[in-house]
């Protein structure tokens, strides 16, 4: 495989699964032109006049869509680790004798482990989407035939809109749907919140199948997914387990050390003056980021400060803030617990947003850059503030990018991370995998102190004399190495197994095969 050095000095492929790829040229340097991609023109005459598009089962729906070997099939991840559709879907494809399919999920979870067997048997060629848990191991072991492609939520939308990825068939799990294909995620026994991670799929895919365990009589409102884009509707016994929407990354941490980091993060936001009337913030998934919002809430109440909006990942803590008048709005990309689902369904100020409005590179602006402060996690951060979120220090894929890269455009980006995890330093000389350029990372909060990016003189000045433990990142790293010892670099092979895209579709870094 041919690799070239990109603007940040990382070696990246120029061809990804047969499609040419642009090496990252630096922030703001890539500006594609031309026209957006689009689906074929359908005609309503080809669909039943009575609006009933139901078919008996998945197999019938796939056959009706003309599925064949090598096609790209997409699903959404609103059920997180409780998704029951993708495994059924590809098991059906296997029964149909299909080969070399590409799975294009908006994210994958450990529950998708059975798909590794379908990659072994050739039903699935490769996955373009987050690769973690067993799928991540499969990829970094070098077993996947194609290259993994890791995109942010906004980057996935970008790839669909500029034609980098063409979805042949979108299969959308819907907690409520009518026979016409109108669907939403807020009603029914499997309610999961919004369905907007599947919105691009529904409008850009050649064919669209809605699967539901809760078929209602027309009209299904609100129609987050519009039936006018849908080819077939399938009734399934089960599509997801909403109890598992709350998977590992969405529980507030109980670790005293992590809570300390969360509280320190909230103090930074308060004492730097970012927390003021009418401000906005976003907290990522991950126990520490979630806990930060709990502390910030107390500080806002004490100071009598109200936010204009919160970007979410919503959960019960953010819902409580909305209901207690600590924010005017929640603009919500996905719900992290069932309280979030309830609020989105019942509260007009809890608004479902799509990755297009929130994050897309091909929009006329996006919300991410209008947020005052975002708090995220990371697996590693280096002394130049470059950050990693997909691999651990051993080079294994462990997490998806999610909205993480997109959020970096906030006015202040804070990474709240432990300085080390079980002796593995989190602050390092150089990240194993580069997922965000350091110039977008403003603050790193650890239990050993707060490092502010020297590019942010304004933030350094704002917190001067406020009693916060602000330190040079090199000093924090020195403390870690005194405790842990100087870390050795993991010995990775030079075989590229996945590519990390930046939000504009250019290639930021490569993920390498891990030695067995």
């Amino acid at each position, binding site marked *: 495989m041919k690799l070239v050095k990109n603007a940040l000095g990382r070696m990246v492929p120029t061809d990804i699964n047969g499609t040419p790829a642009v090496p990252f040229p630096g922030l703001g340097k890539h500006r594609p032109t031309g026209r957006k991609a689009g689906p074929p023109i359908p005609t309503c005459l080809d669909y039943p006049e009575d609006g009933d598009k139901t078919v008996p089962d998945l197999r019938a729906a796939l056959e009706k869509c003309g599925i064949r070997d090598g096609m790209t099939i997409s699903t959404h991840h609103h059920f997180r680790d409780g998704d029951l559709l993708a495994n059924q879907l590809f098991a059906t494809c296997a029964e149909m004798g299909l080969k070399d399919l590409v799975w294009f999920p908006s994210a994958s979870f450990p529950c998708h482990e059975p798909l590794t067997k379908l990659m072994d048997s050739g039903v699935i060629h490769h996955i373009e989407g987050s690769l973690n848990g067993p799928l991540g191991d499969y990829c970094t072991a070098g077993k996947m035939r194609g290259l993994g492609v890791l995109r942010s939520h906004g980057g996935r939308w970008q790839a669909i809109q500029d034609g980098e990825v063409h979805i042949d068939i979108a299969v959308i799990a819907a907690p409520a749907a009518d026979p016409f294909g109108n669907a939403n995620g807020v009603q029914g026994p499997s309610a999961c919140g919004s369905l907007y991670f599947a919105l691009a799929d529904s409008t850009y895919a050649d064919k669209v199948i809605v699967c539901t365990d809760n078929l209602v009589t027309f009209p299904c409102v609100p129609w987050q997914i519009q039936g006018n884009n849908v080819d077939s509707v399938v009734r399934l016994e089960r599509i997801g387990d909403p109890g598992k929407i709350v998977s590992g990354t969405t529980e507030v941490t109980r670790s005293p*050390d992590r809570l300390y980091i969360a509280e320190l993060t909230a103090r930074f936001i308060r004492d730097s003056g970012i927390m003021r009337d009418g401000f906005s913030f976003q907290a990522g998934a991950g126990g520490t980021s979630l806990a930060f919002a709990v502390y910030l809430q107390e500080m806002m109440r004490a100071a009598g400060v109200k936010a204009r909006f919160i970007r979410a990942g919503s959960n019960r803590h953010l819902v409580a803030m909305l209901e207690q008048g600590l924010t005017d709005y929640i603009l919500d990309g996905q719900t992290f617990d069932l309280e979030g689902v309830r609020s989105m369904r019942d509260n007009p100020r809890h608004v479902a947003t799509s990755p297009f409005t929130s994050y897309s590179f091909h929009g006329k602006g996006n919300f991410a850059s209008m947020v005052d402060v975002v708090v995220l996690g990371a697996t590693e951060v280096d002394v130049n503030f470059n950050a990693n979120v997909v691999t651990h220090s051993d080079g294994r894929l462990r997490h998806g990018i999610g909205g993480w890269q997109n959020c970096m455009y906030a006015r202040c980006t804070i990474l709240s991370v432990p300085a080390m995890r079980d002796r593995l330093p989190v602050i390092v000389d150089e990240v194993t995998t580069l997922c965000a350029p350091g110039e977008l990372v403003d603050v790193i909060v650890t239990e050993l102190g707060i490092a502010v990016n020297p590019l942010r003189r304004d933030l350094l000045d704002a917190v001067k004399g406020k009693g916060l433990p602000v330190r040079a990142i090199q000093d924090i790293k020195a403390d870690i190495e005194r405790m842990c010892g100087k870390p*050795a670099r993991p010995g990775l092979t030079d075989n590229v197994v996945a590519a990390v895209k930046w939000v504009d579709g250019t290639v930021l870094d490569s993920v390498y095969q891990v030695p067995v």
Partner: protein
Amino acid sequence: MMATTVSAGRRGKDVRSDLWVELELRDSGGIDLQVNSKIDFMYGEANRKLAQDVLKALGVSNARVCIEDSGALPFVIMARIETAVRRAQPQRKIPEFLPDAGPSFGRPTTRDRWRRSRLYLPGNEPKFMLNARIHEPDAVILDLEDSVPPGDKDAALILVRNALRAVDFGDCERMVRINQLPGGMDELEPLALAGVNVILIPKCESADEVQAVDRHVAGILQKHHVKNDVFLIPIVETCEGMFEARRIARASRRVVALTYGLEDYVADLGGSKTQAGLESLWARSQAVNAAKAAGVQAIDTVFADVEDMAALEASCRAARELGFEGKGCIHPRQIPVVNSAFTPSAAEIEKAQKIVLAFEEAQARGRNVVCVGSKMVDPPVVQRALKTIELAVGAGRLNVDWDKQEDQ
């Protein structure tokens, strides 16, 4: 030589920052070392070298050594291997091999320092020690007594000794609760050499016990030319101890505070622990009075429910009203509540300032009694106000020359 196999430390899915080592001494063949670690890719080589160095320094040259590491830091690795070697050769005099001194090693303490919150840390559990300081307790208590099972007393002592040297405890006073005497006596030397600030004597029942510890500590400090002093806090936990509390508190100049243990005391009493706590009122009052009569601090027992912050706050308030100056903590989240409860509030500080200033003014005019608002202020009231101000200054809530600033 008989091939006996010993082990030390812990392994398993839930174990973190620790390691398990199995050691089988042999007659020949050198060191056969196996290390299994999740972080082998990063610290495998360093760990193997460290293990070899420790074995060599401890005089082991032929052995099969099997290590399962769960992210242990070097001071833990050294402690666990040393424990295994000592278990394999209990009769041999084994040299010490100590970790490098960390930033807080050797920091001295003072008699009268702030001891509002003291965080108990199980002595055989490394992971809670590493970041204890960030929660800002006034002191950490590395516990060798009740939190350590009988079979691991040796391991805990070695780990605590290494932690006292290597772990950065910041500005926290470093305390160790030794085991009940006479066993605890043997623990004093390694602890004193590792720079412990305060020794807690559990289930203390007589002044003699305190004096025995005092003499032993003094001997160790003198013999090894240790320049930092080591202080004592007796813990009274029995009915007998309660009656002796007054003598215990004044048994040695090293005693800086007196505290008591409620669970053991109520068990000894044969009563039952109630919410109102009437069963221990006499004991608590006795402990405070014994401490104050001896001129040392009085510290309240721990509060067992780590979830109920409101009840903890009420318990702290009641303790402070009785005269206690601090409380033991068994979870980091209790620390801010305890610190705040034993620090004078803004309103209390303001009132104390008013009293002191009014009294100074009255004295300047030759009077010894004055009214502040509707209340009479006489010397004992002023003394309490001065104590409040001293605490406020200690907590950084008030400038040390506050009254002079007032004049300007």
